[in-house]
């Protein structure tokens, strides 16, 4: 069963650091920076998402603190846990903080700690290789070309040119992407979302105390579903069951979506599995709906500060919603062992 939480949690403050290679900042510096403009007076609980350094959030001095590590879905999971905690009465006002210091680690280290079963890791599999296997199968079934995949990443860079918080707010042509070194065929280096440093935070309160604050939007539903960690054991290589199970629970019209484009193929699968486009038609849909899908520039151009990404997506989708519109964020752990879909409205 897909885990559903529905509610109407007011989001009362947001804060975002532009992701990047922030050599002069450590984890604590990133946390201090992202919370410096927030008023934490009423905050009585913290949900700290971090993957690579077991960050404790001690900088916040909040006793009721929970740490969350669900890889790329950490930030989204922290939002969900904070909302559930508020609804249960465990706290009245919660900060959700996603923080990551990825540039301290080498690619080899990142590959070793990534969520793949031993059977796959011992064959040399990486997160990139497993998404490449999905991309190869997708190209074979639907006639999509490597240039189309590169165009997905290129479009995200174009979208990011309007976003002052994007790590790469510059054009990047599909041709340039195709000339970059191969990671795992057909995924080129410039099609991978970068491992970034960064932090993002939101503060949420109980619906009953909303009138005490300036409400920026509402967190209305959270859906999660799981699948086999082992890519080979999954029912399909051209869709992710975890995302499909979440999508079945979405009951409202979605106007904006921030989806998990760690590679172009993961964006295409998300757009189809979330029910926006039919199988094989995601790229056509994205081209026609540039304002709807990853208008921020996505992970590719905003940067991927892993545990901060789910919180960054929430801030981005909220900032683009008009009155009464609903928007969603979608993120994955590993190669699709977990999908978290959070839904917001203005």
């Amino acid at each position, binding site marked *: 069963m897909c885990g559903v939480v529905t509610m109407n949690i007011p989001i009362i403050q947001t804060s975002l650091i532009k992701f990047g290679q922030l050599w002069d900042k450590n984890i604590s510096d990133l946390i201090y920076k992202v919370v410096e403009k927030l008023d934490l007076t009423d905050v009585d609980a913290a949900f700290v998402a971090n993957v690579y350094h077991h960050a404790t959030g001690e900088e916040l001095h909040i006793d009721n603190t929970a740490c969350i590590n669900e890889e790329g879905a950490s930030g989204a999971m922290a939002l969900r846990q904070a909302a559930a905690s508020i609804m249960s009465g465990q706290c009245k006002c919660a900060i959700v903080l996603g923080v990551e210091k990825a540039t301290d680690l080498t690619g080899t280290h990142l590959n070793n700690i990534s969520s793949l079963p031993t059977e796959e890791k011992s*064959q040399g599999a990486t997160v990139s*290789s497993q998404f490449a296997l999905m991309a190869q199968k997708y190209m*074979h079934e639907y006639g999509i070309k490597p240039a189309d995949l590169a165009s997905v990443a290129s479009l995200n860079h174009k979208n990011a040119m309007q976003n002052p918080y994007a790590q790469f707010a510059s054009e990047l042509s599909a041709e340039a992407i195709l000339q970059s070194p191969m990671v795992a065929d057909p995924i080129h280096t410039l099609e991978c979302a970068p491992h970034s440093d960064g932090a993002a935070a939101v503060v949420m309160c109980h619906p009953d105390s909303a009138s005490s604050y300036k409400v920026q939007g509402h967190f209305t539903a959270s859906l999660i579903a799981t699948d086999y960690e082992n890519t080979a054991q999954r029912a399909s*290589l051209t869709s992710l069951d975890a995302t499909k199970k979440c999508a079945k629970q979405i009951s409202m019209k979605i106007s904006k979506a921030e989806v998990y484009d760690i590679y172009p193929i993961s964006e295409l699968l998300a757009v189809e599995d979330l029910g926006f486009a039919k199988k094989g038609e995601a790229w056509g849909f994205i081209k026609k709906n540039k304002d709807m899908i990853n208008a921020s520039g996505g992970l590719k151009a905003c940067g991927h500060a892993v545990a901060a990404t789910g919180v960054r997506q929430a801030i981005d989708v909220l900032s683009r919603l008009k009155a009464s519109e609903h928007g969603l964020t979608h993120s994955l752990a590993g190669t699709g062992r977990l999908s978290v879909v959070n839904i917001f409205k203005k």
Partner: protein
Amino acid sequence: MISIPYAWRNNRSALAGSFCNACKLTWYPSSKACPACRNSTNPVELSGKGTIVSITTVHESSMPFMLAIIKLDEGPQVTAQIVDTPAAAIGSKVVACLRRMQSDGAQGIIQYGIKFRGV
């Protein structure tokens, strides 16, 4: 270093799977309980024959290598390296073979495991 799964150390020359009498499903990697129904399973030796479902070349190591998802004739799928078969593609028939996986330096233990090659 990534450790090699115990099932491969116990059964080096063949693929060790498991069969669930309740579901009538064969599983790989082997598991004492059926991943679908959690009933206990019986060990079964797989033929090692299969067909490539998807294949890529991975460039993230010093030597590029081919990695595929293979559907075994008995049903389950496995992620494994493809060797000695430069023309391998989706649909190619392959068979399991014992190959060197990694070694712990020049003096260290050499670990062996299963890869696949064209038929």
